[in-house]
């Protein structure tokens, strides 16, 4: 097995891991900050993919990317203000079940608007090239995914560490009462966070669309994997989720060489093991 082959497998793993990270970030945000386990996240990811499908028929890839994210964030904000905020503050079991119902509705709406058949999204010209790695031609798009992931993680980290609003978010993670007593509007913070989470979900769906099967199962598939990342990485731990994503992505890619079924089983087994042994996630910084 040549080094170049190994490199392609590694890159497959990392790019898959990055997709999972992008998908999992939003989930972690709602959970850590608002104590809401939001299963509708599945719908947001799927919607991101479908919206990109439609937008790409009208305009170019880049434009569709930006507009798609903004639309998703907008939908998320509306949903939050109208529906989701009713479940904030309730028991986790309730948020799981409530958002499950919302997810069912939203995903069914995909069928209503876009029909039942899977969609195929074509790569835009600029990104469809291949890079030679040893004897192999590696798709540039996967490297693009890794790039986007890096950008997003760095952006999120900067937001949380450097901006005042980001400081407020981190403060609210610890003690909402003090934050409120300092004149900060917590519901509005939640709205912002929810919008960010939804936008990220849309981005994840959009970026994933050209290389995964875009059908209405896609959202659930990603959601389950997002849960794996959030649990193994630790809820609310950006570093943990990134680390877990890379490791699990590579693990998946490696096992998938033998069989994809087993790869999925391994990933979920990892989640189970983390719940059993490391409830605070890999880095121990989860909640």
């Amino acid at each position: 097995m040549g080094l170049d082959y190994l490199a392609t497998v590694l890159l497959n793993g990392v790019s898959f891991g990055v997709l999972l990270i992008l998908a999992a970030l939003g989930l972690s945000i709602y959970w850590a900050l608002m104590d809401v386990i939001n299963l509708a996240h599945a719908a947001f990811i799927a919607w991101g993919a479908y919206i990109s499908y439609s937008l790409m028929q009208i305009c170019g890839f880049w434009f569709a990317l930006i507009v798609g994210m903004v639309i998703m964030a907008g939908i998320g904000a509306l949903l939050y203000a109208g529906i989701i905020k009713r479940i904030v503050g309730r028991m986790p079991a309730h948020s799981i079940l409530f958002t499950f119902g919302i997810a069912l509705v939203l995903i069914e709406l995909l069928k209503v608007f876009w029909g039942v058949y899977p969609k195929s999204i074509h790569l835009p010209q600029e990104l469809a090239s291949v890079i030679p790695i040893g004897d192999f031609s590696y798709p540039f798009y996967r490297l693009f995914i890794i790039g986007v992931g890096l950008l997003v993680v760095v952006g999120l980290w900067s937001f949380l560490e450097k901006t005042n609003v980001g400081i407020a978010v981190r403060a609210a993670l610890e003690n909402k009462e003090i934050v409120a007593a300092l004149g900060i509007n917590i519901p509005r913070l939640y709205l912002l966070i929810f919008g960010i989470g939804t936008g990220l979900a849309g981005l994840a769906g959009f970026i994933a669309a050209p290389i995964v099967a875009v059908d209405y199962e896609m959202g659930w598939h990603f959601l389950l994997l997002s849960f794996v990342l959030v649990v193994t990485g630790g809820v609310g731990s950006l570093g943990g989720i990134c680390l877990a994503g890379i490791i699990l992505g590579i693990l998946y890619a490696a096992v998938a060489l033998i069989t994809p079924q087993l790869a999925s089983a391994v990933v979920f087994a990892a989640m189970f093991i983390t719940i059993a042994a490391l409830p605070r996630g890999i880095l121990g910084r989860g909640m």
Partner: protein
Amino acid sequence: MNALLEVNNIDSFWGTAQVLWDISLEVEKGKVVALLGRNGAGKTTTLRNIIGLSKSIKGSIKFKGQDITRKPAHERAKMGMSYMPDNAGVLHNLTCLENLRLTQVGFKNVDLDLAFKYFPSLRDHLRKAGRSLSGGEQRMLGLARACLTQPELMLLDEPTSGLSPGFVKILSAMIKEIRSETSLLLVEENIPLALSLSDKAYILVEGKIVFDGPPDEARSVAEKYIIV
């Protein structure tokens, strides 16, 4: 003349247990008011009701003439109130500087230098995480943060509890300096200190106000109900 803060006949609960019965109190502009009582008498709950972190059942709360009973905490803060809980409320995951910068999210034109004016030693701890500050340093940070928004009313919950006499001195000095612009409602276990600083005192026993008057009269009443 309307008082700055008027609390009228509020009840409050902690879970299902009633903690406050028919509480009324007033803080006038430019005055320091002490709220005294034993542990569990309801002092913290009273402050939390005023800032809006605990719910007031029946009755009303007025601030600067406006009814704030239904207003959420952040709106009350923006009207000119600040609150420091009994553990200083310093956020452990944030640095000292970030704790101060939090005020800039809710309020415009916050000048961080004001914090260093009263507590210059804070400058040495700016990059330290909240959790690595000592108790006294956390209190200083909490107080500094409460002053930064230049509130008209400060609610302080046991600011000197468990701290050194040196710190007590700093606090007294600070209070004396800001009292012309900022009124204070002070919950204190240190009764002689509280009475020395305040213009008026309330004594709370098991959720009810049993005394309301000038500090010198308060002393003897306090001795009856609380260990001074």
